[in-house]
Structure formats: C-alpha cells, structure tokens
C-alpha cells in the first residue's frame, strides 16, 4: 500500500508540464529523530510511543508542523503518560522541548530511557514466538500490530540513512520505563513556561515566548511543544477558558506551527471531565488540532471484566478504549483510506510501554472458565490439530 505508485489522476496537462521535474533536494538525514513518512515523504518525528506512531494514518510518526490533541475521560492520567513519553523522546532526540503551564518538577518525572523501541520489540517478539502456538493465526496479525507494522514501516529509513557513510542508524523511537527517571544531558534544554494569570489573555505571553524561542533558534533545531492538561483550573486562571483567549491561543499555535512547518510539533492533553466533548468550546479546540485522540479508561471497578478482555490469558488486560476522531494530514485531506480506520482500539499502559492495539469485546464470564480449563490442560493438543 505505502509503496504504491502515486498518480495524480487525469489532471491539467498544461499545469503539469509547467512543473519542473525538479528532483527535490534529497532529504539530508542530518537531523536525528526525523524521518520521512513512508506515506508521502514528509518529515515526521516520533511521539515516543511506537504504537501511537503507527496509529497516525500511515506516517509512522507525527508529521512535523502538526499537533495532536489527547483527550481523556475520568480522573486517570493515561494522557499524561503519553505526554511524558513524547517529552522524553524529544529530550533523547535532543530536540527543544517547551512545556507550558507546569512547574519544572514535571520535567524531572520523565520516564527513564531503556533503549530503542526496536530493542524492546525484539524482546517482545521473541517472547511471542514462544507463545505462537497459542494464538490463532488470524489474531496473530493483530497481536503483532505494534511491532509488525512498525517493522515494515522502518524499511524506508535504512534506505535513506544507509548511504550515510555506514553510520549506525539513529533510532527513531525509544523505549522508556515509567518507574525510572530520565537522565540525559539535554534534559536541561527543556523550557518551562508558566501560566501567569492576568486580566487579559493568559496565553499571550506564552505564545510570544514560544514564538521568540522558535524564531530565534537555529533553523536546524526541532521543537516540541508540550501542553499538559490544557485549561486545567489548577494551573490555568478561570478566564483562560474564555473562547476568545483559548481559541486565539490555539489559532496562534497553529499559525506558529504552519510558519515553521518543518521544525515544530505539539501535543496537548485536555481533561474531558471538565470540558466535555459535547460542548462547543471543545469542538473548536478539536477543530483547531490536527489530530484528535480520545482515551476512555475503563472504570476501576470493572477490572475483573477487563481482565477477561485479553485474547489470551498471558496478555495484559486493556485499561481503556481509545478513539481516533481525527488524524493528522489524513483528515486535512478529506479522510478515509486509512487501513486502520474503523477499528476499535484498546490501550494498555504498563511500566515500559503504552500499547495501543485492536480491541475485542471480552468473552462472557462463563466462557472464560471454559477457556481457561483447556488452557491449563491439554492445550497443545488442540492447537497442533488446528495448524
């Protein structure tokens, strides 16, 4: 799919011939953490979560110049974990990370680096191979989703980097451990912009700082803008949720990102319990974002129910549902044609990874016992027969 020839259809002959067949500058792979999208070659960067990268409409990363809005229901902080991965990835890739609204302690709580995402995946897939016989083949593809697609998407990257005097390929995405603390020389490069309450828009100063920081920086520096829990009343003054303030800010952010379309990405989280999706303000916040993802954690009491949700007993139970409402680039162009479209997603946050995978309804409780009985006993027999 991704390697299919792209044709523009029968379009204006005159205009087309006018285009100089200029082979655009061969992408100098000078910037770590940036790689061309396998879909259309635009530069992308990693969100720090491999399965989230893979969700983003075939770009295998967050396209530069785009923003991602993560909404979360309830009082859990899964979105915060995604945001920390994103910030940590930025630190590790030596990008400039701008954090808005939270104190510097937030920066000290970034998850520790434990290697590249591939290394973790290799371990995982080894483990998977041992379990292979337990997984029906048609689920296997889905189970390998996180690793499998990432693997295939990696293909173009070596192609372009391989020529770089045999340098070892720079990792695109890293793995982090939430229980460890990130220690990286460039962690001091993070900037923290506080929200200062004022009678006018509290965002004006923030936007100005971001603008100056990005405009004055060298054109080869990549920036990440991290906005945890937008409009959260513990950090933002009450007037921040006035549409003329917050929407103008997001519009300004959009303008900033389109002005430096190859240097900036942003990730914003929004607490839906305070600002529900059914409100017009949140609609506008969504419309101003390039990607919109909603997390719906399962309530705690239903842990038992969720526990039965794994396809096999060895898999961790999903902790919530994930909905993609809008994906960067894809929806800007009109939507559709994504392979992953129309699937239900579940997410699992463990110590070492935030994994997004297809969700299947948990089997009935009664069924579960029936399932487990053979699992403990004569399981191998059955699978031998089937394959």
């Amino acid at each position, binding site marked *: 799919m991704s390697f299919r020839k792209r044709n523009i259809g029968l379009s204006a002959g005159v205009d087309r011939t006018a285009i100089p067949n200029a082979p655009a500058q061969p992408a*100098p792979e000078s910037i770590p953490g940036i790689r061309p999208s396998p879909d259309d070659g635009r530069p992308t960067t990693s969100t720090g979560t491999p399965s989230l990268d893979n969700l983003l409409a075939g770009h295998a990363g967050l396209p530069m110049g785009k923003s991602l809005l993560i909404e979360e229901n309830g009082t859990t902080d899964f979105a915060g974990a995604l945001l920390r991965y994103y910030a940590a990835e930025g630190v590790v890739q030596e990008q400039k990370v701008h954090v808005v609204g939270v104190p510097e302690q937030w920066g000290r709580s970034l998850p520790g680096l434990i290697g590249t995402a591939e290394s973790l995946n290799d371990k995982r897939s080894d483990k998977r191979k041992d379990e292979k016989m337990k997984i029906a083949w048609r689920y296997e593809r889905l189970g390998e989703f996180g690793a499998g697609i990432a693997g295939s998407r990696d293909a173009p990257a070596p192609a372009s980097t391989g020529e770089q005097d045999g340098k070892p390929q720079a990792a695109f995405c890293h793995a982090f451990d939430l229980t460890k603390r990130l220690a990286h020389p460039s962690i001091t490069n993070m900037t923290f912009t506080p929200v200062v309450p004022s009678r006018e828009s509290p965002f004006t100063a923030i936007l100005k700082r971001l603008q100056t920081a990005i405009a004055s920086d060298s054109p080869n520096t990549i920036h990440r803008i991290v906005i945890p829990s937008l409009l959260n009343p513990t950090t933002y003054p009450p007037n921040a949720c006035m549409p003329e303030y917050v929407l103008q800010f997001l519009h300004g952010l959009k303008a900033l990102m389109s002005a430096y379309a190859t240097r900036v990405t942003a990730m914003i989280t929004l607490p839906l319990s305070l600002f529900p999706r059914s409100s017009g303000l949140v609609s*506008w916040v969504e419309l101003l974002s390039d990607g919109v993802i909603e997390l719906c954690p399962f309530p705690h009491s239903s842990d038992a129910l969720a526990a039965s949700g794994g396809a096999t007993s060895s898999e961790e139970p999903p902790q919530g549902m994930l909905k993609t409402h809008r994906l960067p680039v894809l929806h800007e*162009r*009109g939507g*559709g*044609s994504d392979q992953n479209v129309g699937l239900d997603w579940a997410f699992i946050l463990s110590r070492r990874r935030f994994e997004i995978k297809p969700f299947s309804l948990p089997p009935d409780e009664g069924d579960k016992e029936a399932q487990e009985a053979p699992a403990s006993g004569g399981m191998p027999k059955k699978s031998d027969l089937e394959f």
Partner: protein
Amino acid sequence: MPSQPPLPPLLAPYLSAQPEASLTLVSSILGATSNWLTLRFLHASLSTSSNLNASLGLGESHNGSKKVVLVSFLRGWEFWRAEAKRLGLDLARLADKKQFAFVDGLSELFSAPQTVNAMPSVPSIASGPTRTSLPFRSQPGAVPGRGPPSAAPALAMNNDNLARSQTEQGIVKKLHFSGRGIAALDALERDIASVIQLQKSSMEDGEELLLIIDQPDFLLAATGPVMGIGATEMAEWVSGLQQHVHATIVTLAADSPLIHNASTSGHQMATPVESEHAAFAISLAHRARSVMQLRTLETGAARDVSGVLRISRGGGADDSVEERELLYYIQRDGGLSVFGRGES
C-alpha cells in the same frame, strides 16, 4: 476503485457555474473536512482543463475563465499550495497571472507580526541575501512536484523557509484583527476587498470572480459577543463581501455541539459560542443557494468511503439545484471518487 477525473462527473455540475450573487455553503465536521471540496472548487474555476466539462455538456458555456480569491482562516498558504499541486494546479503561478489570490487569515490574525519574522513592509528575513539568491531559487520556487516519496516537502529547513517567505510575497495578504466589534470586521472587509479590487483591475469581459471564505466561523468563535461580534454581524460581513464578487462559497463547521446545543430542546443553556455559531450557520444556510453538507458515515467508518456529501437547496434556492446525496472517497494519492449509495 476506478479512478475518476479530478472533477468527478457526478460532482462537476455543482462545482462549476455559480449564478450571480449566489452563496454556496459547505459544512464540514471534525472527521469529514471540507478542504478537498474547496480544492475542487478551485480546480473547477482555475484549471484550464475545466473546458472538459463544457465539452461534456455539464458546465455552462460562460465559464470562460474565472478568478478566485481564497480567504482561509484555519490553513496557511503552504497547505493550499501543496494540496492544489496534487491536483495539478500551480497556485503560485496562477497568482502571478492574477488569476488567483490568497488571503491569509491564519498567520497573523491575532498576533502582531514578530520582529524576527518578516514585517509586512520588510521584504524578508534577510532581504539582501534573498534577493541575490533569487534567480537560482525561482525554479524550485515553482515547487518540487510530486516525486519519489522522500522528495516531497524538503527537510532542508532554511531553504524551505526562505523559499516560502519569498513566494508568499505579493501573493499573500495577511489579515490582522484589531480592535473590536463592527469596526474590526470592517477593517478585515476592507483588506479583503482591496485584494478583490486588485484582481478585478485585470479582469476581462466575461470573467467572473469567485470568493471562497474558508471557515469564517472561527473568527466568530474566537471573538464572540464579548468583543461585540455576533452571528448577525458575521453574516452581514459575509454579505458585504458578497457584494464585491460574482459568487461566494463559505465553508464552516457543523459539528453537533456547535449546531444542536443551541436548539430550544437543549437540556442546558447553550454557551455563546454554541448559540452564535448555530445562528451564523443556519442563517447562512437560509441565504445560500445550495448547502453542501459533509459528514461521516452513520454506520461507522468504512475502508472505501471517506464520507457522505449531501447537497440540498438552501433558503435562497431556485429550482436549478438538484438535491443529491453522494458518497465520496479520497484516495491516498489525493484522487477522488464520488458515487451514489450502492454504487462503487
């Protein structure tokens, strides 16, 4: 899926031939955006191959050539340029020929231009070097075409930035919102009208000027009653602009919270953002000749359908608009196919 021409035959009659003083409203939602349709409007008006329609007997003969002014509040010049390129339209070249003009409502609408950045009067970031390097850059300035995937938008940032700031000059008029209330809207109207006048100055007989306003509803949401701007004022603003041009196309959002929260059956009080938006959208629909509504499939996403396009007669309709409901699919390469339900 069979590939269709850039203007699929089912859609073509709605894209070409806007009668005089008509308003076409395009509504979109979060998961079904309207950019592709806007681009098709551009294509139908600007592409020289749109004579194709005439030969098919679809377009009226008066679509000699058209000029288009595009005012966009949510997307920048770079986006439109790159996407139009995928359709085979070179907007930069058309702008040079005064066929097309872009009014940028994104970059500096609410923020004063940065000192580091190019001031509107100052040519560019560093005017000297840019000038000298102009000759060799003018070629890629016509934009790297589609090529091998890795070739598309360059990773070379500085080149990109310079090239852009240079191409933007003269083409792009940047809007600035200042002040409040009607006065602020009037200033915006004057800015846009000046661009329109500039286009008109080179107009030949029989040429028509089409104005596309992309998401003016954002302006309403981001200012609102607190700043003395309501749905009525916005609608007046639109009709003020309409008076300068032959026909107008307006896109806006029709997400459920923005439209339905304000209806009286609502459970709680609608917020000003919601009620003003609903009033703006519905009153524009009352004025419109046709309303093109985009939405996602009710039955959930599908792999070969991007969304549903419903074309209805607006309040100002005559009988010439045929109402239809069509499915559309945007392919990965930007190609579009439009088909009826049950067809493919």
